[in-house]
């Protein structure tokens, strides 16, 4: 790390503060000094935490360490740590108020006919069942003492609520979990068996259709144990790793007890077959002009923007920082998040979000997608 | 909020000056012969007035009032409830129904939703405590309720020498079993009618004890595994804690009785019972000890011990003259010399109050428990006193 005197020439040499003090008193100037060192110094532009602008923190993941879960994972991105546990419970269709009328017949017919191919209609049923029946229940908690400012006994903070909902909507929009993994089927025995045997041509046409007796509901609870910026990436990675680790026991309808029973045999349990592996990458924009965020009330028109671009030829005035830590998050207004997956080597954008400012343009976004694609490769290694 | 949090485990500390605290501590810690502010002996309880069966709408009730005006009322209600079969099995439906009904006063269903048909279950006894000025999920009521409930469900009655059950073989839990599929659920509602002038534990515990003693359950008319139905004649109802039948000669001390929780403090080397608010404020250690009669050995047996955070840790220290700026030069040298307090092992200047630090020595705990349990000790005295209250 550079010493403050050299990194920030604006500070008179007489007043020599240790770097940590300066970082607290003048956070913006401190970070700016790191990102744009004076040309004479011949130093590369690095962030205050020593990373390059597009560099992510060291990430590690560890799955399956919690005993009382169907699947679990601990993901650490730098000093941010998220623990995710997936617990599966059964939702009996008889407990669903609207079940008998609407879904049972259509759903069963659909899947009976559609067979193996994923038709649009089947996908629609998939989506509807998961979303309408609330089969995925993610909840993120920051009330763990993970950072000062979150009172443990208080209800979920605005940040926790928004993160929970972001995870939920991403689970829904990526259709990560297949509804068929969550269904518990029942094939009623053929009571006309004896009759059928008598008249041979009776055939299998009037056999009872398979019916859904229950759904697995996945309670996905994420505890942020340590928060040092970029909670979303860590939380999402932990959800993904935990879902990849999740095993559901074999379950069947037991006619005698009129309930669903499960097998404890681990060989009969099935893993979830997830659709792809969406990886989230978050970015933030640091602007050299500390007050830019306050002034940006009017969106500049095209001419102004061109003029702006001309100006940019001069010293760089903004940096897009990947995987911001808590210090950087506090200094930036504009944020972006890109979720990508790769199918056969091709990058697919699943979600793109940018908010809080207007400096990221289409070119930048293209670049961010490329960085996110690289991050995908990295995460694939980590998640195994 | 903070003020209440501080008062979480022990009741609010009275606003006593450092000098008053020091005086109290010195007089209470006088070797062998403590002087209590109200002149009681160390083991003497405050006078109290008690009555039973005051609420006709309950299965059992009691009221106790202390002379200082604090009063508590306890009502016990019993309801018949379907038993959920063993460990999370089969009847998961009623299990989920149970959790829909909400967390019971003890909130234990979360961990102990399963229950046994034979042994009875701790979560069948629900206790809620209302203290003016506290929300019912504040630490003090929750702590008190857990403490009292724990000893209630923890006490297991013994069998008679010749193997005849006295009706309480499984303790209170076992008594609540009707048959394999049905059980009683007991709701114990404790109401403190006045502001807690002292730590309300002894008052609440004694009142609960009397209310449970007076609790009657209607006589069961159905047999075996039938759905239960009961005799509507209240006169033939049976006591929850069975009494001696009139014909048999029965020693009252052999009878199974609910446990009582006593509050014991140690000051210096003295052990003091039923402390009032001022006394508890200078205590070195505060213990809540639950005891009940051992039906086998005729003695007392210990059920639970819990330490309670002594409020003396939160008091303000006094300033010795040697450090007091106003007294500069006025103190004779050697006036404030620290001496070692043998009970706490800390250096102290006599007459200058220091908030208590640290914990309790094991020997002190052993001494406190011994005073409660010993034959003819305080525990027996209290239980005998309660037996004197006319019940029913």
């Amino acid at each position, binding site marked *: 790390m550079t010493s403050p005197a050299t990194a920030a020439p604006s500070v008179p040499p007489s007043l020599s503060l240790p770097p940590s003090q300066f970082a607290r008193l003048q956070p913006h100037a401190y970070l700016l000094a790191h990102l744009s060192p004076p040309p004479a110094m011949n130093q590369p532009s690095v962030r205050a935490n020593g990373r390059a602008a597009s560099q992510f923190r060291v990430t590690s993941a560890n799955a399956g360490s919690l005993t009382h879960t169907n699947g679990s994972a601990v993901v650490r991105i730098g000093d941010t740590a998220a623990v995710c546990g997936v617990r599966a419970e059964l939702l009996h269709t008889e407990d669903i108020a609207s079940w008998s009328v609407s879904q049972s017949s259509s759903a069963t017919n659909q899947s009976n006919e559609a067979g193996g191919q994923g038709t649009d209609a089947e996908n629609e049923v998939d989506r509807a069942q998961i979303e309408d029946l609330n089969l995925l229940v993610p909840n993120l908690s920051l009330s763990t*003492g993970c950072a000062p400012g979150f009172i443990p006994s208080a209800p979920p903070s605005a940040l926790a609520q928004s993160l929970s909902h972001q995870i939920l909507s991403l689970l829904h929009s990526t259709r990560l979990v297949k509804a068929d993994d969550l269904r518990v089927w029942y094939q009623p025995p053929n009571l006309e068996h004896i009759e059928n045997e008598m008249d041979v041509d009776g055939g299998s046409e009037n056999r009872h259709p398979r019916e859904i007796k229950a759904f697995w509901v996945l309670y996905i609870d994420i505890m942020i144990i340590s928060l040092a910026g970029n909670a979303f990436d860590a939380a999402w990675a932990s959800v993904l790793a935990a879902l990849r680790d999740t095993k559901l026991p074999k379950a069947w309808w037991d006619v005698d007890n009129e309930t669903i029973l499960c097998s404890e045999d681990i060989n009969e349990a099935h893993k979830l077959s997830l659709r792809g592996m969406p990886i989230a990458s978050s970015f933030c924009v640091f602007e050299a002009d500390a007050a830019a965020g306050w002034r940006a009330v009017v969106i500049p028109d095209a001419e102004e923007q061109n003029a702006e671009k001309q100006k940019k030829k001069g010293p760089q005035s903004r940096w897009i920082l990947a995987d911001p830590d808590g210090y950087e998050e506090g200094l930036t207004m504009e944020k972006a998040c890109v979720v990508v997956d790769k199918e056969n080597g091709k990058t697919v954008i699943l979600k793109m979000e940018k908010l809080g400012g207007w400096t990221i343009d289409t070119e930048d976004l293209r670049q961010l997608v490329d960085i996110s694609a690289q991050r995908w490769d990295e995460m694939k290694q980590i998640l195994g | 909020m903070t003020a209440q949090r501080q008062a979480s*485990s022990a009741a609010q500390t009275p606003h006593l000056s450092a000098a008053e605290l020091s005086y109290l501590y010195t007089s209470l810690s006088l070797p062998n012969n403590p002087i209590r502010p109200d002149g009681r002996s160390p083991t003497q309880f405050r006078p109290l007035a008690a009555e039973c069966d005051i609420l006709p709408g309950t299965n059992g009730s009691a009221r106790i009032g202390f002379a200082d005006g604090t009063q508590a009322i306890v009502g016990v209600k019993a309801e018949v409830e379907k038993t959920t079969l063993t460990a999370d099995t089969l009847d998961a439906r009623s299990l989920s129904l149970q959790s829909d009904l*909400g*967390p019971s006063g003890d909130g234990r269903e979360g*961990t102990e939703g399963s229950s046994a048909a034979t042994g009875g279950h*701790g979560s069948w006894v629900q206790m809620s405590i209302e203290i003016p000025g506290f929300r019912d999920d504040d630490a003090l009521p929750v702590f008190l309720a857990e403490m009292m409930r724990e000893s209630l469900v923890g006490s297991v009655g013994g069998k008679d020498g010749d193997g005849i059950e006295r009706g309480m073989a499984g303790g209170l839990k076992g008594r609540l079993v009707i048959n394999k599929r049905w059980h009683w659920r007991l709701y114990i509602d404790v109401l403190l009618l006045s502001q807690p002038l002292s730590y309300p534990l002894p008052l609440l515990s004694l009142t609960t004890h009397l209310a449970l003693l007076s609790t009657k359950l209607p006589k069961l008319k159905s047999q075996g595994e039938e759905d239960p139905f009961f005799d509507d004649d209240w006169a033939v109802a049976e006591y929850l804690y069975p009494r001696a039948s009139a014909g048999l000669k029965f020693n009252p001390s052999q009878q199974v009785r609910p446990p009582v929780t006593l509050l014991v403090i140690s000051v210096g080397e003295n052990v003091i019972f039923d402390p009032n608010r001022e006394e508890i404020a200078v205590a070195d250690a505060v213990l809540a000890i639950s005891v009940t009669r051992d039906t086998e050995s005729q003695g007392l047996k210990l059920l639970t011990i819990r330490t309670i*955070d002594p409020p003396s840790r*939160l008091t303000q*220290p006094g300033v010795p003259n040697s450090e007091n700026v106003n007294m500069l030069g006025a103190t004779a040298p050697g006036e404030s010399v620290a001496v070692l307090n043998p009970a706490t092992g800390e250096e102290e200047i006599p007459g200058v109050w220091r908030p208590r630090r640290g914990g309790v020595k094991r020997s002190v705990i052993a001494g406190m428990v011994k005073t409660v349990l010993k034959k003819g000790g305080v525990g027996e005295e209290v239980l005998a006193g309660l037996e004197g209250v006319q019940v029913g």
Partner: protein
Amino acid sequence: MLKLPLIKLEMNDRRRINGPPGGTRPAVFASHLESSSAADRARRERQPTELRKIFLKTGLIPSASGSSYLEFQPSASLAAARETPKSLIPPSSALKLACTVHGPKPLPRSAAFSPNLVLTTHVKYAPFAARKRKGHIRDASERDLGVHLETALRGAIIAERWPKSGIDLTITILEAEDDRWWADAPDSHDASWGMMNVLAGCITAASAAIADAHIDCLDLVAGGVAALVSDDSGDSSTTSPRLMLDTDPAEHRSIMSACVVAYMPARDEITELWLKGDSSKAALENGDARSAHEALIDGAVDAARGAYSVLGDALRESVLQTIQS
């Protein structure tokens, strides 16, 4: 009373994502219905006085003034089940918890004057910590744990060094301990025994976090558990209960009485004691004049001494690290 609205509040909590409105049921395993054979039940393979290893590390959470992470060594049966997974039902579980300390910081303006440091403790189970799913709102047992922990720590902290300030101590339990073996029906001595192990872990971890936050204490305070257990099957009730240290309730058939202490070895003092259960029938070895409850307390103190050495090592290690860096 207040109870019903509370749960309704949790069920329709708009600030959280709620599951299906009709509620869900935990999975029922077919093997639950059969009477389980005694052969596969978890057994204690440690000596009665042998403690489980404790993994304790401080300073893992940089945004807190002090932090610690504590993990108990998995029991033999759990380790075996992890090695060669056969069943989806874990035989037992091992405590895992994270603890953070924030402060000392000034008390809010609205708070009353306090001449001492105000300690606030908060213990919460993660929803997936126990065999049964926990709610998001603290229940009575979690609040009770918080009070116990507060008592244990207040005795150790030298509180008058920080007037008008407070510290917040938060413990998140990621994995709790069982109250009994999963297939056992609760017997007449059933109680929430697992909670006592959790408390012992909480005390040790909290003490490490407080030391990590550089808050002056009289001594490190360590938690320990001892219990009187009877392991024989119901029909032969001839042998009397035996005293064991650091009991895992899943490994024993019946726990008669248990005790947890918070202990400061330097002063030989107990700041928190919680003993419950009927210990009157316990028979100690011949020549032991102690009563059963005294033996329990002594046992718990011995267990706490074991935890204390782990505590000391963990803090020494973290100090060495800070010196070197």
